[in-house]
């Protein structure tokens, strides 16, 4: 069935190119941004979304077998591990950096609930 094969090829190309473009943004951002938390955020985005999309593309290309299941487990592992590592970095930055207030606004959970927004809310 060539039509389905063509659709599959298109999906693979779409996912892998999307993932690679996010990788490019990650590398660009890590060198471009001056502030630590911005760099942390763009690196975490690349680590979760970029790798996830690339692996989804590879899974579609691979078809149904054991290697696909292993790739799905790798995605689950990365989505658990990578955000937590960025959370630890952000928390370390919050506890050590004294000039953090100059660069961003820190919102505690109670204040955020009161205002109804959660942006900029580390810890």
């Amino acid at each position, binding site marked *: 069935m060539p039509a389905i094969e063509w659709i599959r090829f298109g999906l693979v190309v779409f996912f892998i190119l999307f993932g690679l473009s996010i990788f490019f943004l990650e590398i660009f951002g890590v060198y471009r941004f001056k502030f630590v938390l911005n760099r942390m955020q763009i690196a975490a985005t690349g680590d979760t979304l970029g790798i996830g999309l690339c692996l989804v593309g590879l899974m579609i290309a691979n078809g149904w077998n054991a290697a696909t299941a292993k790739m799905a487990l790798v995605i689950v*592992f990365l989505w658990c591990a990578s955000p*937590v590592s960025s*959370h*630890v970095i952000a*928390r*370390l930055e919050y*506890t050590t950096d004294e000039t953090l207030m100059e660069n961003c606004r820190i919102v505690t959970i109670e204040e955020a609930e009161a205002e109804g927004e959660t942006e900029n809310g580390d810890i």
Partner: protein
Amino acid sequence: MSKIRKQSEYEKTFAYRFFRWLGGEKDIFVGNMEMQPQKEYVEEEATIEERMKDRQQAMAEVYDGSHNMELRFFKILYKIFSVVFCIAIMAVLILTVSYLPEVGDPNRPTSNIVTETYISDGLGDTGAVNIVTGMILSYRAFDTFGETNVLFIATCCVMIMLMVDEDKIKKNKDSNDRGFEPKNDVILQVIAKFLVPIVFLFGIYIILNGHLSPGGGFSGGAMIGAGMILYVAAFGFDKTEKFFNEHVYKVIKVTALLCYGCIVTYYFLTGANGLECLILLGEPGKILSGGITLPINIFVGSEVACTMYAFYALFRRGGL
């Protein structure tokens, strides 16, 4: 305590002194040897200045530094020759590498009868589907035994250098080491609770499946050690002390090394040359096969996991 002799007689024998030393009741150096803490080496500023002045005087008077053309010429020549020497060595090395046979070339000198024998007879002799593990754990089992001993001796040396008394550990538990680190981070703890069993399970899978798929004791043990380090980073040393303290560490480490040595010696004495052996090879491809490869993988794995965790704990706080 002896039942045959009297206590006063027994105290004079060598055995009494040896067991007392072994049990750590008396340090033989205390009282017999003068012991002082090492002093820090401090140099006074006057001596430093004097030394520099001497050096300048020697350069000016003996060698006539500012007018000596020979000396200046020699310095320039020295720089040029050092650069030329480095470039020459690099050129020789790169030239040698370019003459080496390519990877996978069938005509290269290393693909001789040894390699052919390993590939053709490996499955029949060792019973392991993964030829690499079968080779390093049964043909060259004593070689790997030496490597495991290296790990053992390395942890012993680190313990000699970095081990601190238990009282001191308890005293400055919370003082300087984890100063800025996030303690009792809830997000990290929840994820560690979820991830650590998966990491352990994958390490155990790699160890137990070492004779069937890529992997083996070293890689699986390193993975289990990394999982334990993650657990310590999330929950602190109080929780790990409950299941992995110094006593457990000693027992696992020594037992693994001794069992490995016994199995290898027995195998080399009986099973290696087609003689009868208690450890059966089994059916290739099954999980219970591979002769001595499976138990040796387990022992090497526990040894490596203990080494990794012990290094981390000793570097971190000076005790297990």
